[in-house]
């Protein structure tokens, strides 16, 4: 199966480039924080750490991986192999989602909070899928690492600012539909409880954004990768 081989390649690639080492250190660091801070803080800190795992890390890691592959010319070679670009993309998403899941579950268990692991898993998959697709789109447009650091700025602003706005207004539905905010509410919900309709609204929003990303990639990827008019 080409997809499974692509997944295996990604895991080897990420391992050799030290991504797993970074993840392990971070996870350990978070676990230590959570064991030392008082219980009343971990109620809010644990979910925030957990939401950063599939989102922030997913976004930056896929960017880093794609840029590494681009600068090594790997992507050029994969384009002349039978591997389909969507098998390639799915393998990337799966590999990063697997690490995010692993790390989130460890952090969640060590926080001492109660939660439903199946719901958490489902939500992590959704969040991770969106952010890796977004990071993929951004990195796809860049040829050099410097370009990448410039081009991620708009996405970061668009995702972080609405989270900040939460401190000012927290009952505006439109803000809550923004992927970063929706992700925070979903993860908070895993630990503090959430109405079904809320869960459905947030996750539907994320899924719509996932579909948008996919259609963008489907439409433009060959144009971006191949060049020409």
């Amino acid at each position, binding site marked *: 199966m*080409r997809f499974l*081989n*692509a997944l*295996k*390649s990604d895991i*080897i*690639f990420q391992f*050799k*480039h030290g991504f797993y080492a970074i993840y392990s250190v971070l996870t350990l660091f978070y676990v230590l924080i959570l064991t030392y801070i008082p219980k009343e803080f971990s109620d809010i800190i644990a979910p925030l750490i957990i939401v950063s795992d599939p989102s922030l890390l997913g976004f930056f890691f896929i960017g880093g991986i794609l840029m590494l592959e681009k600068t*090594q*010319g*790997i992507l*050029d*070679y*994969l*384009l*002349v*192999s*039978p*591997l*389909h670009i969507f098998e390639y993309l799915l393998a990337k998403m799966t590999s990063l989602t697997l690490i995010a899941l692993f790390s989130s579950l460890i952090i969640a268990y060590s926080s001492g909070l109660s939660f439903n692991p199946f719901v958490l898993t489902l939500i992590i998959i959704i969040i991770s899928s969106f952010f890796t697709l977004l990071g993929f789109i951004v990195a796809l447009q860049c040829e050099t690492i410097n370009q990448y650091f410039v081009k991620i700025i708009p996405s970061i602003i668009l995702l972080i600012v609405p989270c900040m706005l939460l401190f000012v207004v927290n009952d505006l539905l439109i803000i809550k539909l923004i992927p970063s905010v929706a992700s925070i509410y979903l993860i908070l919900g895993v630990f503090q409880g959430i109405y079904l309709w809320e869960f459905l609204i947030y996750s539907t929003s994320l899924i719509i954004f996932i579909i948008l990303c996919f259609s963008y990639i489907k439409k433009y990827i*060959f*144009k971006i990768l*191949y*060049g*020409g*008019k």
Partner: protein
Amino acid sequence: MITVNNLSFSYNKKQPKVIKGIDFSVDKGEIFGFLGPSGAGKTTTQRAIIGLLRGYEGSIQIMGRERSEWNNEIFERIGVAFDSPNLYIKLTAIENLELMASYYQTKPRDILKLLKRVQLYEAKDKKVESYSRGMKMRLNFIRAILHNPTLIFLDEPTAGLDPVNAKIIKDMIVELKHQGKTIFLTTHNMEVADVLCDTIAFIVDGSIPLIDSPKNLKLTYGSHKVIVEFMERQQITSREFDFQEIKHSKEFLDILQNKEIKTIHSQEATLEDIFIQITGRELS
């Protein structure tokens, strides 16, 4: 194997075309070479045929079908070595080959044997980042033929290789031909074009002024010269004579009989001479 008709391409709508309506065909089992100076459009044409460029004009028939009608399955039968090696630098040679081989349905050729052949066996377990450029080029080359493709594209296959390793690669290319593979290579090295290719297309500024076999090119365009160096008034002087003419040349016979000869060379026109003669451009 490949038939290209009136192919044009520009990277940007606003810019002039870099390929300007070229025609050629590559037969099964031959080594076909694109010879031309830097910027002539060799890589561009090759990438268009491989399927890495969108929006070309004209037609590219490959293995019996228009290029745009093929899906990814075509890559099971095509091998590509780009002009700059693109490898997983944190992986070893073996890991690189095994990883890529896993995407193909065909069972890969004997990896260790191939590594031995290009003198990478000793370095097979070293990370590619520690490789020299020449080593990377050789690994890049064997990766292109690992899945036993029937049509092989090589972009400057011997660039940056020392003579010994260049010879190994050239020998392997000839072996591939004897196995019935079709090879399309680009080069601005006339020696490579001369010894390897059955057919050579001269390409300059996106056009192909001439296509023929190296032998015919030399017969048709090349002159064969004899250069004599001899002493005249205490100085070494030299004269050039057309090879066909020397029998009848009084001056040549006179020099032979009456002068102190230092050297006599016979010189054949190189493809480079012919290239300059036809295109008015140098290869490098």
